[in-house]
């Protein structure tokens, strides 16, 4: 009854059956209602291994409809293997959906490990793939106990962990998956995004959804919601520092941008070079720079 008659493949639109989608959709609504709380769901078998973005994929497939413009990102790039695989799978199973690499054009963005540099709008939803959803797992092995700790917003042991870092290294050394408190209550693992991206969750215009396929959890940061990295008042949160030895901000080798998150490469001659991690951001800046030259 629920099959769309025009589907050219043998699969249901979006691969998942409609019951699976309904379960995910109910979980999404509760995740939005309780910001930062990890809502359990069944997490169906997908035709790819768990750990390859199946949580994000199930969210995307439960959200997506004909007319959608989808962007898939892996570590900032649309051309990395995980992004290409997922995009092709979605194109194959969702006829009527178009895909783009341009952040500005997308209505739905599924991403692994990055939030685009271009600020997202209220018309966009970002889906993040999550390997380890629970920020408390480093201090408490029992999920039953973690659920109570989350409910009570008891993060004292996590703060002790951060404090131990300060004692040892004079700063908190977490590079990615930085524990972030949502709406003053739940602390989330914001997925392996760098620190650079964490402030983008704070009072974002877009809705952010997180899907962990292996761990069977869905959680959300609604738009216009507090998302504060866990810190101590005397040790403020800071993002990655891209200054060189002389204190100059490094710029992207390719487009010259000096205010984006940079990836470090070693070129053929053994020199370190830096490039924008967000490939669409880089392309856009390069196009602008070239226009400047021709004008």
């Amino acid at each position, binding site marked *: *009854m*629920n*099959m*769309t008659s025009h589907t050219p493949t043998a699969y*249901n*639109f979006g691969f998942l059956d*409609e*019951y699976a*989608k*309904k*379960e995910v*959709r*109910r*979980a*999404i*609504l*509760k*995740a*939005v*209602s*309780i*910001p930062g*709380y990890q*809502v*359990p769901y069944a997490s169906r078998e997908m035709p790819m291994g768990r750990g390859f973005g199946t949580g994000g994929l199930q969210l995307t497939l*439960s*959200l*997506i*409809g*004909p007319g959608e413009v989808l962007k898939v990102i892996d570590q900032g790039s649309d051309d990395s293997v995980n992004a290409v695989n997922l995009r092709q799978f979605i194109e194959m199973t969702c006829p009527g959906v178009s895909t783009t690499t341009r952040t500005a054009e997308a209505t739905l963005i599924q991403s692994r490990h990055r939030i685009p540099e271009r600020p997202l709008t*209220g018309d966009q*939803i970002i889906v993040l793939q999550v390997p380890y959803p629970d920020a408390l797992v480093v201090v408490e092995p029992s999920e*039953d106990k973690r*659920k*109570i700790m989350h*409910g*009570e917003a008891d993060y004292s042991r996590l703060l002790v962990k951060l404090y131990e870092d300060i004692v040892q290294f004079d700063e908190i050394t977490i590079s990615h998956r930085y524990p972030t408190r949502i*709406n003053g*209550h*739940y602390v989330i693992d914001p997925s392996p995004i760098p620190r650079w991206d964490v402030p983008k969750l704070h009072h974002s215009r877009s*809705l952010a959804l997180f899907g962990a396929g292996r761990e069977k959890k869905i959680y*959300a940061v*609604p*738009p*216009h*919601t*507090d998302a504060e990295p866990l810190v101590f008042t005397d040790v403020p949160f800071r993002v990655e520092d891209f200054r060189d030895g002389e204190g100059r901000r490094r710029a992207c080798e390719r487009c010259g941008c000096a205010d984006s998150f940079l990836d470090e490469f070693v070129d053929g001659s053994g020199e370190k070079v830096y490039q924008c991690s967000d490939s669409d951001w880089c392309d856009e800046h390069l196009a602008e720079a070239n226009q400047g030259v021709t004008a």
Partner: protein
Amino acid sequence: MNIEAIWQAQTQQALFREMLEAMARPGTVRDLAHHLEGANALRGLLATLMDGSTTLADPHGLVHDADRVLLQAALDMPERARFVAVDGERAPDFQPALGTLASPELGATLVIVVDALDAGSLTLDLTGPGVESVKRLACAGLHPDWIAAREEWNADFPLGVDLILVDKTKLAAMPRTTRINVLAEVH
């Protein structure tokens, strides 16, 4: 065979996106008319969210027998069901499930049928997650006791209930995080 739009997957996807927008941006009124093709918003919502693995309470008899079969949801008491459909003109006379500290998602979703959204004498100012500063929502046909009872039910976050208001074709949501300021009723 002619299948009514609300029972078709493509319509349900579109309706779900409207509900998600409503839940993510409390107080925003979403008009579902062009998806519903004549059905009312309550039926469209239930068709989109119900199946055999969830439970529905219908204490005011708002769901037709024929729909109940298609929805597949097991009927339960309003005190226990995951979804409760109610008539907003009647005062609440039950306490819905509020969830547990470890599993607050077990707190019910109340679907309240009102006479009109975006119009009417009851004016609510909403703040909280999903609202940039203040969102004003007007409605007609909502017994004020629902607002008072909700405040009591939602006193201990993360426990609580999430509200979805529907009129004939429109929908607006107030998750448990939304703070409601009732402005004096204007006549």
